[in-house]
């Protein structure tokens, strides 16, 4: 799950980025409108958190431009202008959600999670695959009723695979969605994390849920 955070306030951006990363999201940041626009073209983001008052190009014009260009990412407007009119205007221009500054970090994270769910047409925050239960809200994973502890990155990988269950996800897709712009690890790190995940999820259980499609990628067995 990859998120673009377009926010010109360095400290705010840093805090939000860290919060999102701790949720297992890969976060790219942009400090002004132009940078945001540029980055949005370079990758597919699940969610874009967009400040309205931005240097260079303001958030609303970016939003208009992106929606016109057919961008599918969910967009959460983050702004100091919290009046009803501003919210209505933002949502009518194609935003999916709106959050006024100052905000609770947890609320922002919850909204981002909701947007991610929506992106995968999942209403239930708990993804169930066979006897595996992934609670995207509480960040807990159970298999056969047994709690399994995952690192944020493992969790993110599992969540990504689970959202795409029944479909093959390539390494590059995983790479693209789970690692931000600053990660410079090579792509076999994906294989490493898959192995960690299998160790925790499939090792003591039957049947194995994480399958390898040789030459293509990985997938979680669909029902």
């Amino acid at each position, binding site marked *: 799950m990859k998120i673009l955070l377009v926010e*010109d*306030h*360095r*400290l*705010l951006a*840093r*805090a*939000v980025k*860290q*919060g999102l990363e*701790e949720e297992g999201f890969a976060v790219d940041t942009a*400090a*002004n409108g132009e940078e945001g626009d540029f980055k949005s073209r370079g990758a597919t983001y699940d969610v874009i958190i967009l400040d309205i*008052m931005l*240097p*260079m190009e303001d958030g609303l014009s970016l939003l208009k431009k992106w929606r016109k260009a057919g961008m599918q990412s969910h967009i959460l407007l983050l*702004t*100091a*202008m*919290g009046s009803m009119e501003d919210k209505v205007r933002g949502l009518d221009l194609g935003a999916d959600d709106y959050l*006024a*500054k*100052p*905000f*609770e*970090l*947890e609320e*922002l994270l919850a909204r981002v999670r909701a947007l991610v769910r929506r992106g995968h047409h999942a209403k239930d925050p708990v993804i169930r695959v066979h006897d595996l239960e992934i609670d995207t809200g509480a960040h807990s994973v159970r298999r056969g009723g047994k709690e399994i502890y995952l690192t944020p990155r493992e969790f993110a990988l599992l969540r990504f695979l689970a959202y795409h269950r029944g479909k093959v996800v390539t390494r590059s897709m995983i790479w693209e969605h789970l690692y931000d712009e600053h990660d410079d690890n090579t792509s076999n790190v994906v294989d490493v994390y898959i192995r960690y995940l299998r160790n925790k999820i499939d090792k003591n259980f039957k049947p194995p849920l994480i399958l390898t499609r040789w030459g293509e990628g990985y997938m979680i067995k669909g029902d």
Partner: protein
Amino acid sequence: MRSIRFSLAVFFISLLGISFGAASVLAYRIAWKNSDDRRIAREELEESRLKDRYREETNRLDDALLFQAQTLARLVQFQTDWGKLRYLELQALGLLSAPFSPHGAASIPLWAIQSSRTFSFEIYRRAVPLIRFNQEDLLERLDGQVAEFFQVETAWGASYLSQSLGKNKMLAELPKIPTDEVLHWDFEDYELENGKQVRRVILKASQFLIGAPQRNRNNPPFGGAQRPGDQNPPRNNPRPPTGGQPNTPPFFRPAITIQCAYDLSRREAQFEQFAKESEVEIGNFQSEIAGSLRDFRNRLFLMNLGVFAVGVVVSPWIVGAGLSPLRNLTAAVSKVNEKDFHLDINQSRLPKEIQPIAARLEQTLGQLKKAFAREKQATADISHELRTPLAAMLATFDLGLRKNRSVEEYRELLKECRQSCKQLHQEVERLLTLARLDAGADPLRLCSFDLSTLVHECAQLIQPLADQNGYRLVCDLKPDVALHSDPDKIREVILNFLHNAIHYNRPQGSITLSMRTAEGKAVVGVSDTGIGISEQEKGLIFERFYRVDPSRHAAEGGHSGLGLAIVKGYAELLQATLEVDSIPNEGSTFRLILNGPIELEQQAQVPASVA
């Protein structure tokens, strides 16, 4: 609340009333004058008519009097035994024949005595019977009886006085009758001895006058052919109609004088009657005129009333129609609200009296719109500037509280919180400064100070920051310039310039701080080698929240775009001028030009060198 419509309607009606009233008064006056003229003319006419009537009446009475006198004369003639009077002729014959007859000469003196008139008349008086009239008979026989008084005198001495005269004999100075006239008469007013005023005619038949009655039958001597003319009394008789000498020698007859008179009071009564009639006539005419004037006045009054009524009914409409552009303007203005400042009116179709109002209104609305937009923008900016660091702080706290972290992590988060807090504090301070400036609550605190020292202090203050960023700070200060102003505000302005110079400089750039005096002004300039300001932006940089390159905001922590707005406010307060020179991507120079510096060269030289 006064209504224009009402006032205008009242003016309109008043004007209508006044003009119609004035016209009516004028018309009435003309009519009045006209009828007065008519009245005067009528009175004059009436007067002359009255005079005519008097004259006619007098003439009529005179004619009647004359006629009666003539009748009387005839009566006298009838009563006279003319045969006896022939002796008078014989007398003359006797006198003539006396020289030729025997003893005739002796009788000449006798004849001569006899020939003398007095003597003869005495004889005639005795010889000719006295004239007697029966009073009643006489009055009966006179047609159209006018005369009351009759007096007959004859050449031979016989006379008659009517009883009405009594002893009051009328005396008359008889005019000499021209020889060719048969009859002669005169009219005159006369006063009797008893004081009675009468009108009389004196008719005299001359001595030779009366021809033989038998021969003159067709032309009676006293006939109506000799009607008097229209002359006013006293009148002289006209030329006799006989046209000169009678063709037969007149038969001698002695003169008869007849006077007929009537009491003038009788005529006066008639005159009074006439005057009364005339007065009645004039009175009628006057009342007729007064009536028509009254009618005219009433009609004018009614007309005015009508006009007034029509004015009252119609004027609100007319005025309303005239005021319709104003109403349109009002409607357009009432449509204006804080969301739509457009004045929905076609200005070119407004009357020229209202156009300036509409134009001004539109202009003001435009300014208001801008002000509203600015206000809105300012609100948005302020919320952004305050909420963003607040949000950062909150987010950082939230992050810290999410889970247990290492001490280093907490330290890092706390540092970030402090940074956000500091930024928030600066922002609040700037906003408060601006608010104080707006409210005029930031007065100048004037004192005399050395500007050179102040600028130098600023340079010292900024030096560490410049060093930290790797910029070279160059100072070019004229020493010992004293100023009487507010040093704190000037310092604030210079520091602001310097901060901007650091903020917008390019790496390894330089900053030049200069101070000099020229033309009685002190100029403090700060130049940088930064990004510069484009020509369009020059007017905007002093606007609140405007940033030349906002992308660097917040990242450096501290430049919200209020600094130059505060500088502008301070400069206005200091009555100083701000100047900006800039070449984009090469650098900018900001100058603060202060009035009234005093150079302290001489006085300050000594302490400066001592120091």
